[in-house]
């Protein structure tokens, strides 16, 4: 006997499920730091009651929503708050038009591989003060924000150059995402090492940008386009019965849930059934006693930060649980939500101060914890955490790879760099 009751029975634009209890106001990182954003209750269902498709949008603050989705996870009534915000943002930007900067930023997947090929030159340019001033003045990309460096070769090139490992071991697919491919290839290498140590043969199916940056600028059509392409590229892998894992929680959320739930793309459910967060996947193996790999002791004090987009995945904190399997590793959860960067949000000049103010809470909490190392699954959070704390910040799989009992050619745990904690004192409030 199975009984069903689903909280999402209403159409997504229906605001009256909201009883205005204000729980979401306790979770929103943006309204926490600035009165310029009215908060999820008002921006979502509150304003929705006054919106009309026939009238021009007046929601000039709607762009301040970071799409972190924390409001959705705390709402006791199941109001699709972030969906309402997204629809309002899409309408506002469709009418007002998107900037050249945003057109460019959400398509970084198109030039990432090229940038990787000329990484040396590109990185020098990205660090060049004159160039940064130009980007700031002409395009509104804040010059105080570090731009991520590109790496040569890309993850895909590295993977493609390895000898084939078709040896009868169970196959597993890996969705690396753009950032791992061109900017942080070690995350991908660590994922491959961990999966191989657990007895799998890794395949890397062809893939495109998941499309979540386009959602950030309310470009639903563009996001749907990316989704369709990825579903087409990934379906052959899942149809042959191969599971796919991801290491980026934002790409993972997009692929596993938003393709189906939000964008309603055909084939999305079929992919989602076989798509797993890598840490969740490995934790499952360890829990069931099926894990082939063991971890060596690592006497270190680490802080684990749960990215916003991990939460709507609804899998708990698998990386934290997996890290607890490392003997002698003292790993604790950072009890603060949202790093503030929110993907491309914090790169935009007009949002820089908000991103930094949100991040200040996280920096203060980590300063209280005094860890030697910070771990988190999201590439955006890692960038922000490095800046905020000056500490080494890794993806959990990078640490786990380093403590594998049989670690092959990978660096040993002792080789992890551990710089000193160096925190900026809080200045005057930047949002006045």
């Amino acid at each position, binding site marked *: *006997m199975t009984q069903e009751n689903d909280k999402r029975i209403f159409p997504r634009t229906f605001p009256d499920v909201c009883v205005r209890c204000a729980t979401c*106001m306790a979770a929103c990182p943006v309204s926490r730091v600035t009165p310029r954003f009215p908060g999820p209750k008002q921006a979502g269902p509150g304003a929705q009651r006054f919106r009309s498709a026939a009238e021009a949008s007046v929601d000039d603050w709607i762009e301040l929503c970071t799409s972190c989705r924390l409001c959705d996870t705390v709402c006791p009534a199941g109001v699709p708050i972030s969906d309402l915000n997204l629809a309002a943002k899409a309408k506002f930007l469709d009418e007002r038009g998107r900037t050249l900067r945003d057109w460019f930023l959400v398509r970084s997947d198109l030039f990432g591989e090229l940038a990787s090929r000329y990484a040396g030159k590109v990185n020098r340019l990205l660090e060049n003060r004159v160039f940064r001033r130009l980007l700031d003045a002409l395009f509104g990309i804040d010059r105080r924000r570090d731009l991520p460096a590109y790496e040569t070769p890309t993850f895909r090139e590295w993977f493609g150059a390895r000898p084939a490992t078709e040896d009868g071991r169970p196959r597993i697919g890996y969705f690396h995402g753009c950032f791992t491919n061109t900017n942080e290839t070690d995350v991908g290498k660590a994922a491959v090492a961990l999966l191989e140590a657990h007895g799998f043969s890794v395949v890397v199916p062809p893939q495109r940008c998941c499309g979540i940056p386009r959602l950030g600028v309310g470009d639903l059509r563009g996001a749907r386009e990316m989704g369709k392409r990825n579903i087409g590229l990934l379906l052959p892998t899942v149809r042959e019965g191969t599971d796919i894992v991801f290491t980026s929680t934002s790409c993972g959320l997009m692929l596993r849930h938003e393709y189906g739930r939000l964008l309603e793309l055909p084939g999305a459910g079929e992919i989602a059934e076989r798509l797993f967060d890598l840490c969740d996947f490995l934790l499952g193996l360890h829990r069931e006693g099926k894990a082939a790999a063991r971890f060596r002791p690592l006497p270190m004090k680490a802080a684990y930060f749960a990215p916003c987009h991990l*939460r709507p995945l609804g899998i708990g904190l698998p990386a934290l649980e997996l890290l607890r399997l490392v003997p002698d590793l003292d790993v604790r959860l950072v009890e603060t939500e949202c790093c503030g960067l929110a993907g491309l949000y914090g790169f935009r000049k007009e949002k820089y101060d908000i991103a930094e103010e949100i991040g200040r809470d996280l920096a203060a909490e980590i300063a209280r914890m005094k860890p030697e190392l910070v771990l988190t699954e999201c590439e955006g959070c890692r960038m922000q955490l490095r800046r905020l704390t000056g500490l080494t910040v890794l993806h959990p799989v990078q640490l786990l790879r380093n403590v594998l009992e049989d670690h092959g050619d990978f660096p040993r745990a002792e080789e992890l760099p551990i710089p000193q904690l160096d925190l900026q004192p809080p200045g005057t409030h930047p949002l006045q």
Partner: protein
Amino acid sequence: MKRWDLIVVGMGLAGLTAARTAAGMGAKVLIIGRGMGSVALFGNSVDVLGEVKPGTDMAESIGAWIAARPEHPYARTGWKVIAAALDEFRALFPPPYSFETAGAGNSLVPTGAGTLRPTYLLPATMAAGAAMTREETLIVGLRGFKDFQGDTVSLHLGCRGTAVSLPRYGLEGLTAQGIARLMDEESFRDGLGEAIRGQMAGERFIGLPAVLGLKDPAGALKGLEALTGARVFEIPMLPPSIPGVRIFHRFREDLIARGATFLMGNPATGVSIKDGRCEGIAVHNPPLKTEYRADQYILAAGRFLGGGLQADMERIAEPLFDLPVFQPGERGEWFGERFFQPEAHPIHSAGIVTDADLRPVDERGKVVLANVRAAGTILAHHQAVEEKAREGIAIATGYLAAKRALTQ
């Protein structure tokens, strides 16, 4: 297929207490909440039973009250379990931010409506509210902060009232969360303390909206008291409640540290039942549905606001397990004459009827599901709000349900 010792449905105070009790006994616990529990909305102090007059010993007085109400959830727990459960709750909050009684019984503390209400355990930031006198108290509102009307509070309490600006110009219009976050910073609360000191005329008590910080409320209290030379207290106000958020975060922190799995944001939408036992609970996170399995289950999904109970034009239903629900007559009999009446509306007594073990029973008293228990406000035959017993019922039944589930 994942397996836990206990799955708790609901993240209010009852569900959190059940999960924490079980995790404390070494059980592998999964807690599922469709959202953040109602403790973040209404949680402030811990009510046990408002009827017990201040100055009277709770332990001595509550027995007779319970004895006269054999169907009340407290009749399942008795004072002994209530007291043990409250001790467990208090153990979660070591000093300086601890929960204490004023004497052996209730104390009267000011509310955001300017009334006095009886409550049992007070957090350190509200303790001075129980000792205030109207002549010696200054109520301080914050300019531009809409959720606390200092004028109304001071008028009704008969105290002097004032309003101060937030120390940093341009922050007016911030939410409770926004102000609480800044209160964690010494420089900000020092600025506020200075502003308050400038308004004082020899008062010995200062009442402020309950926004004294999220991470370090005791530090904020100490700082403000040092600057003003007066005893400072927080006054509960409109949701969301900062003191309630502190309670939620403390439970979550403790549960995760004890290895519990915390799933917030998606509803439990289905159950598998076989041979009078629950075998699994499905959580729907579109497009996926995941089944979680455990030996024991506790339903602490609250009443109507949290979706633990649903009413249509004819009947009240429990939507997850379809448990039998006690309801007071037909719909016409559910409500009293006036919305704001002192007596409870009959519908407030609706809920799940259980055996002594908190297992739901049908009309004939037969246990419905051998490994499912109910806890918190979803239980029938209480008027938690009017009785001022809300937290007491949640904590005591959550604790008992977990103890019984694991020692079966």
